[in-house]
Every structure is written in structure tokens, then in C-alpha cells.
């Protein structure tokens, strides 16, 4: 099948008029405002259009700003853990891990081996559910009204059921602690997780049969929103969006945090950096996650899941600072903690991948139509809980 039957998308170039301060009566300024089904949360794009083509686009956000960082300064280290669930609310387990990693770096706290395996299992399950959600949402944004989204959500429910039976809550898991995990995963939970992972490959095959070769998807996403590798690196883009441009930077390989060096997985890279590549990278990453999950579920050792010297209450790291980061499903999520020796951190900073990935939204959208803007935003994969904190 080829996309040659459809006209190619308008490339940016001489067609884009420079917007100056003069009054252009024929340019339309619209606000794809915070109440919008396709903006992935309360997110606003002030777009100036020449006909259908975008000539200027400014993202406006802050509608979900809950001053999480100030709350972090007024709450103890343990008390901030449930708040990290609510940053990127799809990926609670990885947010928890990033925060626990940074606090453990700050305090020099060790983590037992079983806890590290359990963290990897939960993080890869989170990656599966996040990328499944993204595939569903992206297709919803292109107008495939509901079907791929509902298939994706049906599969995601199985992972959420696993999280519910382990941590008590589907999304707001509050599961990692400084020095390990809150509770242990019983053997039957690991067996159910193994069953889910075994069936996930079949789901991905069916999903790809549904949509990956679909000509409408190809026409709407190939060549749309091209990002060059140089701009991506300079703009601090991380995660699947960076790897779609061809830069091989995956923190699981680069930092080798936790026990990731023990697992044998590949890092898929894209060629063009367009929307279709970003979508396909995520599908391929899901297949790699399945490999990691098989290995981790097979090799998880017995033992405690919490370091015996770790303190639940009264966690007071010595004065100092630390920046810890992990490869979350959306990119590099990092926590910068400054401790002054007290029960609360002196400075508690979240480095949100969605916010930094949005830096080049305007660059990607210039010259494309308004409909493409929705698809490009969908492929960046933002969650406003993280952008605004």
C-alpha cells in the first residue's frame, strides 16, 4: 500500500508568512482553549492561522498548577510520595521510583535486590500501559472515533487490575518507599503478571493489524511534525520523541540505574522524527518491554523488599543535594532535592519530561494545518499533571 494517492503535506518554507506586529486582517487567531477534547488535559494553544496553515503557535498552560513543589517543601519526604502519583497520573509507579531514587541518592540508602526486580517489573508494566494509552489517544485524535482507544483501554484495564491487587489503588499507587517497596508481591500476583505479559504480544499483533498499515493513518502522520536530531538534543527532548529522531539516548542504557544492565533489550530508533515514527517507536518499545518483563519475572529472587535499616518515619537525610532521574515512559523524569537536615526538603523540584518536550511544539507545527497540530500534540505525549505540577 502506498500513500501516493493522497496529496503530500505542505512542507514549511516559503509558504509560511512571517508574522510581524502589523495588523493582519486576514490572519485568524484562535485559541484551542483549555476546554478541548484533544488537548490531553487543560492545555491551550494560541494559534494564528493563514487559512488553514499555522503561522504562529504559542502554548499556554498552568491551568493545573497545584504548586506541588511548595507542597513538597512543607511536607515530609514520605508525605510527598502520594503527591508524586499525581504528577503524571498515568505512570504513578515510575514517578514514585524516580522520587525514591533521588531520595535514596541523597541519603545513601541501599535497596534490596528483590525490590529492584519488583521496581523494574512495575516500571515496565507502566511503560506498557502508557504507550498503549498513547496509541489509543493518538488514534482518537486523528478521528478514529473510539475503536482503537477502547481496545487499548480494554488491555490497560488488565494492568490496572494488577496494580490494584498489589498496591490497593489503580492509578494512585503510592508504592515505592525509600529503601524498597511498600509491600511484597505474592507468588500468585507474579503468576498473573506473567499471564498478562504472555498475552500482550497477541494484543499488540491485533492492534497493529488494526491500525499500523491503515492508509488514513499513514497519510495523516507520515511527514507531519518532523523533528531534527540537533534541535531535539538542544531542546532537551527525551524519551520516545528523541529516539524517533535517531538519537540513541535511553537512560536505562546510559545511566544503568537499578538493575537494568542485567536485561537484554534493544532501543528502537527512528529515521524521520515525524509523528508516524514517534508512534511506531512506542509500539516497538512495548515489544522490548515485554522481553524485559519475561526476564524479570523469571529471575526475581526471594528476599525482603525493604531495606531493614530504612526508616519509614523520620527520614532525615544529611544536608546536601542530589539529582536523580529515570527513563519514564514519557521521557526523563528527574527529582532535584536539597536537604538542610530537617524532616522536609529545603528545595523539591520535579523535572517534568512533558514540559521540556513541549519547547519545540511551535517549531513542529509551523506550516502544517490545524488538524495536524492536534496529531502532533498527541504524538508528543503530554500529561498536564506533569507539565503544570
Amino acid at each position: 500500500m502506498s500513500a501516493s494517492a493522497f496529496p503530500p503535506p505542505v512542507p514549511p518554507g516559503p509558504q509560511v508568512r512571517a508574522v510581524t506586529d502589523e495588523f493582519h486582517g486576514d490572519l485568524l487567531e484562535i485559541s484551542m482553549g483549555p476546554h478541548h477534547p484533544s488537548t490531553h488535559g487543560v492545555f491551550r494553544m494560541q494559534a494564528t492561522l493563514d487559512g488553514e496553515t499555522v503561522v504562529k503557535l504559542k502554548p499556554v498552560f498552568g491551568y493545573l498548577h497545584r504548586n506541588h513543589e511548595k507542597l513538597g517543601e512543607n511536607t515530609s519526604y514520605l508525605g510527598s510520595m502520594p503527591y508524586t502519583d499525581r504528577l503524571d497520573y498515568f505512570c504513578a509507579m515510575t514517578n514514585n521510583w524516580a522520587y525514591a531514587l533521588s531520595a535514596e541518592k541523597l541519603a545513601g540508602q541501599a535497596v534490596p535486590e528483590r525490590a529492584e526486580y519488583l521496581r523494574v517489573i512495575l516500571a515496565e508494566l507502566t511503560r506498557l500501559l502508557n504507550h498503549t494509552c498513547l496509541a489509543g489517544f493518538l488514534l482518537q485524535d486523528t478521528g478514529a472515533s473510539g475503536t482503537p482507544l477502547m481496545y487499548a483501554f480494554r488491555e490497560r484495564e488488565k494492568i490496572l487490575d494488577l496494580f490494584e491487587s498489589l498496591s490497593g489503588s489503580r492509578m494512585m499507587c503510592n508504592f515505592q518507599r525509600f529503601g524498597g517497596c511498600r509491600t511484597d508481591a505474592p507468588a500468585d500476583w507474579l503468576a498473573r503478571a506473567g499471564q498478562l505479559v504472555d498475552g500482550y504480544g497477541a494484543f499488540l499483533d491485533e492492534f497493529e493489524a488494526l491500525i499500523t498499515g491503515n492508509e488514513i493513518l499513514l497519510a495523516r502522520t507520515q511527514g507531519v511534525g518532523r523533528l531534527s536530531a540537533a534541535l531535539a538534543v538542544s531542546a532537551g527532548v527525551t524519551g520516545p520523541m528523541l529516539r524517533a529522531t535517531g538519537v540513541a539516548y535511553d537512560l536505562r542504557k546510559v545511566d544503568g540505574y537499578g538493575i537494568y544492565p542485567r536485561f537484554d533489550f534493544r532501543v528502537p530508533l527512528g529515521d524521520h522524527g515525524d509523528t508516524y515514527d514517534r508512534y511506531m517507536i512506542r509500539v516497538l518499545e512495548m515489544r522490548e518491554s515485554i522481553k524485559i518483563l519475561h526476564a524479570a519475572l523469571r529471575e526475581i529472587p526471594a528476599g525482603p523488599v525493604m531495606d531493614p535499616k530504612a526508616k519509614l518515619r523520620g527520614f532525615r537525610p544529611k544536608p546536601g543535594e542530589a539529582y536523580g532521574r529515570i527513563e519514564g515512559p514519557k521521557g526523563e523524569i528527574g527529582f532535584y532535592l536539597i536537604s538542610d537536615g530537617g524532616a522536609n526538603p529545603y528545595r523539591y523540584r520535579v523535572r517534568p519530561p512533558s514540559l521540556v518536550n513541549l519547547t519545540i511544539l511551535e517549531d513542529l507545527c509551523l506550516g502544517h494545518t490545524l488538524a495536524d497540530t492536534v496529531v502532533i500534540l498527541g504524538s508528543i505525549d503530554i500529561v498536564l499533571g506533569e507539565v503544570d505540577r
Partner: protein
Amino acid sequence: MLGSGLLQGLAVTAKNFVGSFHDPARLTTTEYPEVRTKLPENYRNFPFLVSENAEDPMGTLRCVACQICEKECPPQCILIEKSKDKKPDAAGKLQLYPAVFDIDISVCMSCQICVEVCPFDAIKMDQVFEIATGERFNALLLDRHGLAKPNSYYHQIHPAEAAEVDARLAAERQAAEEKARAAAAAKTAAAAAKAVAAAAPAAPPVPPPSAAPPGPPNPGGSA
């Protein structure tokens, strides 16, 4: 040929559509509220206070108003005021109790930190979510009467956890009783030795009985 991807997708949709009539894996809807899914045992939503029995909930609360959960609660939705007097708890020891124990469940985010830090297994997570009220403020502030639920209810919703807590508390109680018995036995032995020393004034001074370490408890000995 152009359109083969579309046709392949339509075949998948057709398979799911036909499958939803006979395959439970394809149709995953349950007709709530007539049909309810079984919640996993670990599911948590809003805390409750455990009292030992249902007949006297306020008198048998495990909570001793130590206020640790109040300090650790991240959104600070718990309010505790200690009582002025003490009451005996399940092991017979005199403890304070909470005169006021309020949780504002419009603020509570069910994070379970209060449960984790409680040293007395007095507060546990409930599983209620069908608690919509008609009034926005007062009905969402639960006081200790609304929060107290008996231990039998705890066994009903979290059977494995409740069994483990009961076993641990019983073991702790037994260990405390053994220690009390040993201390009492040592005390009577010391008192007897003192009486013997007082009855023989010309005898050389005996070392004070308090210096002697208490012996092992008599198996089955009485206090």
C-alpha cells in the same frame, strides 16, 4: 493495493464485534449496579478506626491518640484531641483514647500513610466508595462514631490482613503477659529473701536482693 490496510483493520473490528456476543474477553462490561465486580482484597478507599467489638465501639477502640497519623497525613485531614482520662485497653493497660477523631474525607486521598505509621493497628483502610451524601460539608467530616467499625468488619473486607494483625497482637499480648509474670515472680522471690534477712539480724549482711538477676519464669507458675 490501496486500501488493504483499511480492510485488514475492518477485519479486526469485525472479529471483535462478533466476538463480543459470545466471548467474555471481547466484551468486558459489567452491568453495574446490578452486577458488581469483586474488589481485590488490597483495594483501599478511606480509612476507618478498628474497635475490638461491635457492642461497645467507643470503649474498645484500639486508638490511643498518639497523633502519629495526624502528623504524617500529607493533606492534614485528621484531627485528634486526646482524652483527659485513661481507660484500660484490650490488654488491660491504661491508655488515653481519642476524645475527638475527625477525618475530612473530602480532603483524604486514601494514600494509606496513616495505616502504615500507626503502631497500634488502630486505623485501617476501608473499601467504601458508594458514600455520596446530599450535603457538601458536614456529612463529609466523619467523627469517631462514623469512623469506628468492629474488628469483625475488618475480617470481612481484608481477611488475610486481619488474620495476620490478630495473630501478631495476640502474640504481643502473650509476650507481655509472660514478661509481667516473670517480673512478678522475681518480685515475690525478692520480697521473701528480704523477709528472711530481716528475721536474722546477727547474720552477716546478705547482698541486697535487688542485685540478684531474676530467674527464668516457672513453667506454668502462678503470679
